[in-house]
């Protein structure tokens, strides 16, 4: 649980919240990070009682504009609201998250086209002499067999993509949230990879441009810096290659390289930003630079400080008895979860044919058969990470399972139980008959929920260089 959760609403379409349920449509951010990056004119703090608004206070903030360190009064005010909300039981459970104390921060801006890109690295990155951000995390204290980046508790991770400049990461962040990247300004990357939904969109199959329903769900971007292949069917080998997919797919963002660059060049603010991010090149605005910036930003989406991680580093009280029991089911050779969802990334990055059902009425998705032109990989998909998995329902490549429990139960339904008679799949050897008890399934769910850590969630930009409104709230579905 995050110690302090703040919700920020898209400033351009701000409605008064009616209840905490309403706030599910908002994006949350650790408090002070907003204050340090946003020019606030005013702020509203809402006090909740059991999900309903008790009262709201508008707080005028002329003195805070643009000042990073001078937010003590505001902090006090927020702290007071936090305590109040805690006392009055304002807590809701959403997608496995327990929110305690909610603030709604609304803000208005003075028009500001002169955005300065950050000159510091995101948390968890150290800045080198030559202005590069390199990732540091606790798993760097360990080794892994054959440098494979897989193993057990104290095992090294695969080498991560890093080494981008703070400016490139920050530009990537702006681009990521900016619908200017789509052909008709209707979607941004964040539309399907919404930070508030574990960098997914809460849907089984994502919706692209003009309402095109995709074949598969949007994979989380958490820890994508550690991956060596991308997309459910593993058809891309780098973040750069991956980014080209949705950008220029007619069904996703629907853009073309020419149109993308024309739009970006016509948005005056971007010219200066690309120069800041790529100062050494004559023409800093090209598709390559867009892709590099998006990669840089995605490489900063690191989640390695969950309660599970504390356990892994040696603090055994970090997990409850039930959660440890779940870990033991997870790694036992009866359930065999950890054979493919191998720590510390909770994926071994291989293709597995497991034979999950498609949503009703849909044909079999052949998956990696296409990528590798191999019938034995029919219906095979890349093993997804389980980190922050509680945030990314529904589950499997096309979202057939609504809950973690349903997803876990699939594995105990019997080898091939959901494969139609006329379908021939070479099922993975770990798809077996574990006959897990109902209790064991519950424990697995308990354990998977310990893999949540969103402490390094990036800040949503205060405004977009294009001046366009944000487009990552529309797809948000309420989670039960």
């Amino acid at each position, binding site marked *: 649980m995050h110690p302090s959760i703040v919700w920020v609403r898209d400033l351009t379409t701000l409605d008064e919240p009616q209840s905490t349920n309403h706030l599910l449509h908002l994006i949350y951010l650790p408090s002070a990070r907003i204050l340090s990056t946003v020019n606030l004119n005013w702020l509203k703090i809402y006090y909740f009682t059991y999900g309903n608004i008790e009262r709201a206070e508008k707080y005028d903030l002329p003195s805070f504009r643009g000042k990073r360190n001078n937010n003590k009064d505001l902090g006090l005010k927020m702290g007071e609201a936090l305590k109040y909300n805690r006392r009055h039981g304002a807590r809701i459970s959403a997608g496995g998250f327990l929110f305690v104390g909610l603030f709604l921060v609304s803000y208005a801006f003075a028009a500001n086209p002169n955005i300065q890109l950050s000159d510091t690295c995101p948390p968890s990155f150290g800045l080198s002499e030559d202005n590069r951000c390199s990732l540091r995390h606790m798993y760097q204290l360990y080794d892994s067999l054959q440098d494979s980046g897989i193993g057990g508790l104290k095992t090294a991770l695969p080498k991560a993509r890093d080494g981008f400049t703070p400016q490139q990461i920050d530009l990537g962040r702006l681009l990521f949230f900016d619908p200017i990247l789509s052909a008709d300004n209707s979607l941004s990357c964040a539309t399907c990879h919404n930070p508030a939904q574990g960098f997914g969109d809460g849907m089984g199959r994502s919706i692209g441009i003009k309402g095109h329903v995709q074949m598969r769900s949007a994979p989380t971007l958490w820890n994508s810096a550690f991956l060596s292949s991308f997309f459910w069917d593993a058809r891309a080998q780098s973040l750069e290659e991956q980014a080209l997919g949705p950008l220029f797919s007619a069904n996703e963002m629907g853009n073309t390289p020419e149109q993308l660059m024309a739009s970006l060049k016509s948005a005056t603010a971007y010219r200066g930003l690309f120069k800041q991010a790529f100062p050494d090149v004559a023409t800093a605005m090209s598709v390559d630079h867009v892709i590099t910036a998006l990669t840089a930003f995605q490489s900063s989406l690191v989640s390695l400080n969950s309660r599970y991680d504390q356990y892994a580093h040696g*603090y055994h009280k970090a997990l409850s008895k039930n959660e440890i029991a779940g870990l033991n089911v997870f790694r036992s050779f009866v359930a065999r979860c*950890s054979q493919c969802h191998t720590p510390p990334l909770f994926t071994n990055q291989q293709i597995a044919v497991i034979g999950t059902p498609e949503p009703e009425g849909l044909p079999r998705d052949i998956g990696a058969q296409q990528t590798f032109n191999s019938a*034995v990989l029919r219906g095979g998909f890349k093993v997804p990470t389980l980190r922050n998995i509680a945030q990314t329902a529904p589950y499997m490549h096309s979202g057939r399972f609504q809950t973690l429990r349903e997803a876990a139960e699939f594995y105990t339904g019997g080898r091939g139980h959901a494969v139609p008679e006329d379908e021939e799949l070479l099922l993975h050897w770990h798809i077996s008959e574990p006959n897990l008890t109902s209790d064991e399934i519950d424990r697995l769910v308990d354990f998977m929920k310990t893999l949540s850590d969103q402490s390094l969630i990036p800040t949503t930009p205060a405004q977009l260089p294009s001046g366009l409104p944000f487009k990552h709230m529309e797809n948000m579905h309420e989670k039960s």
Partner: protein
Amino acid sequence: MKNLNTLAIGLAFVTFAAGWYLGGSNDALTITSSSGGKSYSGGYEAEQSTAAKGSGAVKLRTTEGTTHIINPGDSIQAAVELAVPGDTIQVMPGTYSETVYIDKDDIHLRGVIVEGERATLDGLKTLNDAILFSGNNIIIENFKIIDYKGNGIMSQAGNNFEIRNNLIIDTGIYGIFPQLGKNGLIEHNVVSGIADAAIYVGMSDNIHVAYNEVFDSVAGIEIENSRHAIVENNHTHHNTGGILAFITPGLPVKDTYDVIIRNNFIMDNNTPNFGAPGSTVAGIPAGTGILIMAADDVVVEGNIISNHKTAGILITDHGNADDLTLDPESDPNADGAMILDNVMLNNGYDTIDAVRAFALTELHTGDIDIFQIGPTEGSCINNRHRYKTVGVSDFTDCDFTNTDDIENYLLAGGAEPRVILPSERGEIAYLGVCTGCHAYAGRLIGPSVMEIQALYADRPEALVNYINAPIPMRDNYPEMPAQNYLDAETQLAVANYILKVGN
């Protein structure tokens, strides 16, 4: 191995011609003596272990910690939770029904045997695994383990382990299963009635499997996607397959090489295959003494291999094996098979159709000691005239006759943990953990690093005390979570680091 049929037909014509030619050309026998000749030098870099070889794999203790004595009625796991690295847990004879998991380093878990009575872990056919460990320098010995559903003893990424003198009966999928670890010794265990492999070394390095008896299982001893392994002096009998060295495609560690299989008694492994559908071992033909599939540089020396109906030694690539997934990153061929002198009796007397059909392409009928199919490079065999062989005509004579120079592939003194300087450790913990809530200047979630530096200047120990058990100091700041999951060394390193870090 159904695929063998198809391929055999495809290759029939070509190989027929080759076989015909070679069939008439072995008048002069090359006879090599296995004593006194040149030894195999091994694929393992000798310079990696300069210190004298110890007898075991765990790091030697300089001081002994506490010994915890466990009696029937006590919980072994409770003792594990109390134990600290350096401790020994002694389990007295009696029955214990629990899963013991050791997520700590340097714990020795010892059963005590009194007049033949052992400490018995009984899974009652309901518990998953008997013993799981992830720590380094773990010893598990002298237990009797029965009726678990998953594994008898499993390790995940533990280095420097010794699994010794355990009696493991009907414990599900694997009897002993070290995975993703380095430097392990598995010796003097008796393992039986296992639905997959009695002893399964998966994705591991520097492993020594010796003096075990394995029987009534699908696979006796299996070396999979592993390197620098020696399997010696074991007795493997009445399994489906005796000893296996292979690559399973689709695993994250892609190769198997440098394996020595020597001086084992491999007998009567004709048990019908009862492996789970889809498991790799489900494809082993009953009656296989040794199976080498896609593994490279496997030396087979000094074994007695007798009474196997399919073949004494079966060598194949992935292409001729059935039901395997595609993995472009795994080399599918079994290169560098090295067959030294072995005693082979009564093998291949009732082989599978696919093997028989391919043998016919070489005009071979009757028993088969050694069967090889698929492309292979750098393979060799000594005194080939002794055996009934199929598919080894391309093998050269080996340029060595024994493996005497290689005692084992264990790392003297144990595999070393990664060496991290205190300064690096401090930086890693600061950036990896602290910066999530603390910015250098200005409040993020907690107070700024500058404020912390002002408060704790020159007092890193006080800062360590605070992060171990934080108490609320400021109104309106969320409570800091305790950082007591970091070990003492890391805590001090990060305290020192944070007190001097600049923006």
